[in-house]
Every structure is written in C-alpha cells, then in structure tokens.
C-alpha cells in the first residue's frame, strides 16, 4: 500500500491560513491504514486548524469530510457539491489523490497535508516499511522475494557491498541489509548456488527514468 506521513503542522498552517474557507478532506484507504490520512485524521486535523485559527484570530471556516479514495471519479459522487463549493481543499490523500483532485477541480487550490513516503507493508502494528519502488521490471523471482531496488540503499543487483555488517546496512544499524536477506532466503529455498549468476544491467527505462508511465486496458 501507499504510505504517507502528515506534514509538520506549521507547514500545513502556512499553506492554508490565508483562505476564508477550507475543506479538510480525508482519503480512507491506504493512508488511513497508517493513521495519517483517513477521514478520522481529517477530523482531527480540522479541529487543530480551527484551534489555531482561533488562537491567531484568523477568520476561516473549516469543514472536514472525506471519501474512500481520492484517485477515482466514482468515489466523489457524494461529496461533489461540497468540493465544488470549497474555496480550498486540504487533501490528506497521497500525492496521487492530491493530483487527481487538482485535475478534477481545476480552479480550486488543493493542498497536500501529507508527504507521500513509500510503498510498503505493515510487518507489525504501527510499523510501516518500504518494500517496492515500482521499478517496472520485477526481479523478486531471482532474489528470493527480497527487493534490492527498494531495500538496498545502493540498489545493488549483485550485492552485498562490503559495508554489510551482522545483517545490517552500512547506513544504519536500524536498517536490515537487503542482500543478507536475499542470501538467507536463497539458502532457505536451497538455491544459494543461483547467487553466483551475475545479474545483467537493469533497464531503467521502465522505471521513472523513462518518463511518466501509464497503461490502458483496450477492452474498456
């Protein structure tokens, strides 16, 4: 899923404080799972902004709302009127939702309340870790199900580098060495011999290097 983290409150306040009306708009799917951008968080953030407005004697009408997903048209039906009438929107969606709204409502300012951080999983309650960079050419089949692109700080295809120490990455004792994990996993699969196959040069044109990506289902 897509993981995001709320921006510092001051940064959010500076973006929105000059409006007279603001809709704080949650996105109740990915970023709700990490408790940063769901409809509940939109309600809390709206309350904090109202308090700040009152402290600073700023007149701004703040309402909060939200939908299931800010990245598809069909979810906007119920809130169409509210958004149309808003002077500005503070979106708690990931960068995708913010852009989707900005395209959909082309004369309404849409501000991001989150920093979209990564594509990740939830290995334990309250912990989110990066697992994919959408490079467009998955190699998990040969790396034992451990992604070197997103999990190795040098995205090495023929790791580990010399900085791997007791299972940790050279950049931090908190970060697991992806190639230690690859090696452990290949061993568990009885495929450690495949480690010695030199991985060829990666085609990064399928990554963001090749420009914005899209694909279209011809049947629709």
């Amino acid at each position, binding site marked *: 899923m897509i993981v995001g983290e709320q921006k510092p409150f001051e940064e959010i306040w500076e973006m929105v404080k000059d409006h007279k009306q603001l809709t704080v708009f949650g996105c109740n799917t990915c970023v709700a799972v990490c408790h940063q951008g769901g409809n509940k968080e939109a309600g809390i953030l709206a309350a904090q902004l109202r308090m700040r407005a009152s402290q600073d004697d700023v007149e701004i009408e703040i309402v909060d709302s939200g939908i299931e997903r800010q990245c598809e048209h069909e979810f906007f039906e119920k809130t169409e009127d509210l958004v149309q009438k808003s002077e500005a929107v503070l979106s708690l969606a990931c960068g995708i939702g913010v852009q989707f709204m900005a395209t959909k409502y082309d004369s309404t300012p849409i501000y991001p309340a989150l920093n979209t951080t990564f594509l990740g999983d939830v290995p334990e309650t309250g912990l989110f870790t990066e697992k994919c960079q959408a490079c467009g050419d998955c190699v998990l089949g040969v790396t034992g199900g451990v992604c070197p692109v997103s999990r190795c700080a040098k995205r*090495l295809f023929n790791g580990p580098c010399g900085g791997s120490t007791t299972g940790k990455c*050279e950049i931090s004792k908190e970060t697991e060495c992806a190639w230690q994990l690859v090696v452990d996993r290949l061993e568990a699969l009885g495929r450690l011999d495949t480690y010695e196959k030199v991985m060829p040069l990666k085609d990064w044109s399928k990554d963001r290097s090749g420009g914005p990506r899209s694909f279209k289902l011809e049947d629709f």
Partner: protein
Amino acid sequence: MAATATGSRLEKVLKGGHLAVTSECGPPRSSDPAHIKEKGELIKDHVDSINVTDNQTSVTRLCSLAACIHLKGMGLDPVLQMVVRDRNRIALQSDILGAASFGVNNILCLSGDHQSFGDSPQASNVFDLDSMQLVQTVRHMRDEGKFLSGDEIKVPPSMFVGAAANPFGDPFKIRVPRLAKKIASGAEFIQTQCIYNLDKFEKWMEGVRARGLHEEVYILAGITPLRSVGMARYLQKNVPGMDVPDELIERMKGVDKKKQGDEGITIAVESIQRLKEVEGVAGFHVMAIEWEEKVPEIVERSGLYPRPNID
C-alpha cells in the same frame, strides 16, 4: 610472462610473476594539483601503481580522473577508482574513454560509500549499474570494442580492470562466491579491504584457493597502518565492514602514545611478511591514509624494495 592486454604497469608486474605493490592517494578538497603531485612524488619509487580515490566516504574532492592525469603526467601508473554512486552508464563510459585518452591504463570498479557518510547527505545517488556491472562494462568496451549500446568504439580503452573485495563483510559464507562473481564479471585484479584480522583473511583465502580462484585473478592484500589506538578503536566501532581484533587494540594501547605510530608501522610490516607466505596473495595495496610519507618505510621493511624494473 603471460600476454598483457593493456599498457598497464601493474598488469606487467603481476603477469611478470612479481609481488605487486600499489598504494593510494586521496585527492585534495581544492583545485590545487600540487597536493596530489607531492603525494605521488613521495611514494613513486616504492610502488608500481597508485590508486586515486573517487570522492571517498562521499566527501566532495578533486576528481579522480583529473588527479590520475596529473600522476600520469609524472610518468606514473595511476589506477582510476570509479564509483557507480555518482554516475550513470553514459557518464561512466564517457569517463572511461576520457581516462584512456590520457593513457590511464587501470581502473578499480567500486560501488562507493553511501552519500549519507559524506558532505552531501541530501544528494541523490545514481547506482544505474553496480560495481560488477561496471567491471563488465569496461571489459565489454575494451574486449569487444563496443559501447553498452552495441555501437562500435573506434579506439577502445586499454584498461586493466580491477575490483574490490572485503573478506570481512557479512555474510562471510558469501564472500568467496562473491569474489567468483567478480571474476566472472571480468575482474583481473582485486584489492582487498584493510586487513587487520589475518586469521579471518587466511580463512577466506583458503576458500579462494579451494575453488582455484587465486589462479584466475591477482589478489592484492589491503594494508593500512594504524597511527594510534584511537584510530584502531574508531575503525573497529564505526567503520562498517572493518574487522579490527581486540588483541590489536591491546597491543597499540600497551605502547607509549608517541610510539604508537611506529607500532602501527611495525604491525603493517609484520602483516605483509605473514601474508607474503599465503598462496594466492599476488601483492599488497598499502593505503596509508594521509600518511603517504610512511609508504616507503613500510615497503622497504617488508622486503618489497626495490620494485621490479619494467619497461
């Protein structure tokens, strides 16, 4: 002597059956070339070839390529260190041609320290290729006379191609296979991480010999003299992939502070003397970090002087 593929002095020394001695110079954080020339002057008679580091520890410095050109101009045999951290395949191939155009005949292909260690932790890193893929790239350019794109290179770069090996990185069991992989990629010589844990290095070499890898690549053992017990402790605690045994720290601690540098030199000499006897060690890479003036003494006391006279 085995046939040589390049104009590299290092290649000639190794293929001539001599124990090679290389050293390294870190370029200055300045545009003044005097510094690198002085370092070259200090060690030139005691080594066969001189590595020039490439923005080591991710601290911005005068570029390795330019520094190599300065050394080449002095008649020396530089080893261009090149990291894949800062350059994509276009820049890498371009720099390889540029270096070769000045007669730089050696390259050491490295991944490079992560930028978080250096002066620009906010920088984007590149890692278009990894170090093994860079080794493949140089060999492809040299041997096939082609760019990665398949386009012809009219005058291919003449370079002796090296890679690094760290027998002390984890997981240990992958360190011999990893060397095999570098050889399969096309590495012709290897310069190792600084060796302080000689037992572990010898164990790694046993694994190397068991697979006959020492006959496929020239392994230069990395030696860095300790200047003080503080340096030994720092390397042990703070440098990932560095293995400094406690006994070595105790030995340095047992010596008067003013004499610790001398003790470090003695340890380096003893290490070389012991490792000279290890089958498969083809030479030594003496990295006296910001202490280049000690290289001649280490080389002489280790019985590696004079250097062979190669055309």
